[in-house]
Each structure stands twice: as C-alpha cells, then as structure tokens.
C-alpha cells in the first residue's frame, strides 16, 4: 500500500489530511515535529511526504533539507502544506527544494488528486468508492 508521511503539529489539520488520505485508500504515517518526521522518513521510507512549514523545533524547511541529505530518502517527493499564503511566499517554498506547495486551508474535494499528481502512476491508490 502506498505510504504517505504527514509532518504537522496542528492536531486538527493533521486529522483532516489523515482522514482524507485514508478514505481514498492510502496508508498514513504521522509525525508532530520535524525531528520525528526526519526519523520516520529514514526508517519507514514513505512514497511521499507532506510537510508543514511552521513546526516547533526544527522548521519544515530544515526538516526537508535533512531528509534530502539522508541517502535513503533523497528522491521522495516533499510537498509543503502551510498557511504561509501571504503575497510572495510561494516562490520561497519552491526555491527551497520542495517539490510542490499546497496552501491551507486545503480543499478537501481536490486535496487527494493534488497530492497524487506527485506520485508515480503506479503508486496511486486504486480509486473505488472512497466511502467507508
């Protein structure tokens, strides 16, 4: 099963993303800070990482850079998910080595397909009726 790691300190945001991805058939791992995120990225080898930028302790930018440095997870797509939606922020995120950017609040109707755009076709969940 395709594995997605979410690194997010806000419990509610985390619950929403986790719910959506599970409903569409993904295995979801969660970390509440950068330190755990970095460790899980190396240990559990997720197929994709969703990274909040304003994390306590090690920032999202720093966490992404460290995940990239670890030899085991250099290729994993890392998507920034953040409320940094003020004018001029998007460019910075893309310049700092993220593969993509999703601004909060996420749009539930399109969230999963936006994420899937970063997965190789073979790793996308088989779309059935997502209702449990």
């Amino acid at each position: 099963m395709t594995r997605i790691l979410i690194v997010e300190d806000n419990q509610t945001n985390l619950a929403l993303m986790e719910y959506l991805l599970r409903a569409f058939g993904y295995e979801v791992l969660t970390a509440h800070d950068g330190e755990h995120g970095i460790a899980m990225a190396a240990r559990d080898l997720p197929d994709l990482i969703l990274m909040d930028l304003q994390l306590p302790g090690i920032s999202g930018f720093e966490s992404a850079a460290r995940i990239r440095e670890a030899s085991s997870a250099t290729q994993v797509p890392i998507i920034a998910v953040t409320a940094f939606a003020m004018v001029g922020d998007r460019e910075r995120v893309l310049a700092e080595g993220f593969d993509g950017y999703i601004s909060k609040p996420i749009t539930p109707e399109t969230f999963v397909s936006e994420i899937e755009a970063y997965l190789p076709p073979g790793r996308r969940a088989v779309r059935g009726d997502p209702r449990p």
Partner: protein
Amino acid sequence: MLVNSQAELLFGYLGPELLGQPVEILIPASFRRGHQNHREGYFSQPRVRRMGEGLTLYGRRKDGSEFPVEISLSPLQTDEGRLVTAAIRDVTERQRVERSLAEKNLELERANQTKDRFLATMSHELRTPLNAIIGFTGTLLMRLPGPLTTDQEQQLQTVQSSARHLLALINDLLDLAKVESGKVELRFERIDCRELIDEVAAALAPLARAKGLLFDVHCPPGSVHVRSDRRALSQILLNLAANAIKFTPAGYVRIEAAHEGSRPIIRVVDSGPGIREEDRHRLFRAFEQLESTASLRHEGSGLGLHLSHRLAELLNAEISLTPTPGGGSTFSVLLPEVS
C-alpha cells in the same frame, strides 16, 4: 562685558552688574577654565563663528541654574581695541523637543515591529481553525462519513460558503497590510502576457462555467510582453476577473492583452450591468461594495479592488474603468513600457 536686555533676561543679571566682569561669570564653574583658554585662543585668531557651529555649551544664571546654549561669535574692531560680540541662544526648548521626537520615533518603530509580528502571527492563527471548518465541512459534503439529508446538505453548504467568505476577507486584509507596510518583495521579470492570463483563466474557468458565462482569452502567444512582478500582476488580474464573473449574471467575460501606444495593456471586459458614472470614484476604496441592481449583497471582502489598486501602484501600473460598448464594464491595467 556689555549685555543687551535679552541677555539680562536670559541670565538674570542687570547690565551694570556685569560691567568689568569676565564672560566666565555666565558659564558653569566646571567649564570656566576651559573657556578661558578657548577665549584666549580665539582672540589670537578671531573669525566669525556662526550659530550652531561647535558644540552645545552651557550658560549659568545669576541664581546658579544652568541651561544649554548655542553661541555665534563676531570679532569687532573698535576705538577701544578688539572686542567680540557673542549672540547667545537658549536651546533648552529645542533640545527638549528633539529628545521627545527621538523618543516618539523609537516608540513608532517599536509599534510598527509589534504590528508586523502581530500580522504574521494572525495570518497563521486565523487560518488554522478555518482550515478545520472548511475541511471537515468539505468531507461531510463529499459524504465520506455517510449520507446526508437535504437539510443537512443545505446547512453545510451555508457553513462552507460563510467560511470561504471569511477566508477571502482574511487573505485580503493580510495582503493589504503587507502592501501598506512595504513588506511586499517584488521581482520584476519579462513575462509573456498570454502565459500569465492563461494561468488566471485556468483558476477562474470553473467559476465562469458554473454561472454559464462565456469566458475567453484574447491574446496571441508572444504578442504582448510586460516587465512586472508575476505574483502581484496575477493577483490583480485574478481580482478583476473574479469580480467580473461575480457581477455578470449572463453573457461573457473576456481577458485580453494589447498595446496602447508603446505600453502594454491588459483588459478584463464583461457584459455585466456596468457601473454608474457617479459610483466610479468610490470603486478603489477599501470596504466599498456598490449596491448592485438587484440590491443583492455579493460575497466578497470589499477589499479586492482596493488591494489591486495598491498593488498596481507598486508595479507603476494604472487601473482604470470604462464602460464596455454595448453594456458592461472594462477594467484596464496599463503597464509601463518594456524597455
């Protein structure tokens, strides 16, 4: 020493009391010796010294109180030999004002920093709970947890559209605050208008489609280039085009790029109800939303046009409004010539 009446007032002596006294009597004790040396040096090489040259000195009144002064000196050749005229100005008040200005500036600086921190924090804190509201309303409406009754669906739709309205308001407010505080970083680059307009059109096409409007782009690729900030310009066009779609009940909305003289111009043309001549001057102000013909309050912050106007100023561009021939409004963004 001879003094005039102003000096008598300033130092609290009567003129005759100072006759025959050295000038050092008017100077605080601690400065006297130094002053005596300066004075002797000055007499050997006298020249005019204007008010405010040199350091602030101190004067001493008859009652012993001290106060800051500025002096100017002019040598004076007389029958009784060389004299020096000293004009003395009490700068107590000026120093007080300068100090209080410096304090005020520091206070303002601090207040401004507090405001910036506040905005950055609020940006995050306001959006986070909205994320939850919009998000879980969305999952409910997607029926992921289970089926909905008609009433439940309608009420959830109201929750969702209100939350989206609130989000638009917060976004506009925060963007505006960033513009007002000069915190927008601009990167001017050469942009193919067609590319930019296509991005904007792609974002808004679903809105136009939902209203059954004809929505198209008139701009041959490579025909019009601008030198501008991509993000700011696309935000302006998004605002103008979203407005056009919102206020046009039927017909079309078109985004087109062309040249006006040597300057590039991008127009958002609609076939909507148009805007009355007498209302046009209010359009670009904050929190103005004109009553529409159906006196229906449209969803929106009332900040979009004001924000666009401010962003255009940063880009040295001008936004103007003209009626569309045959009915409707045309908003034009006239950009600087590409050198």
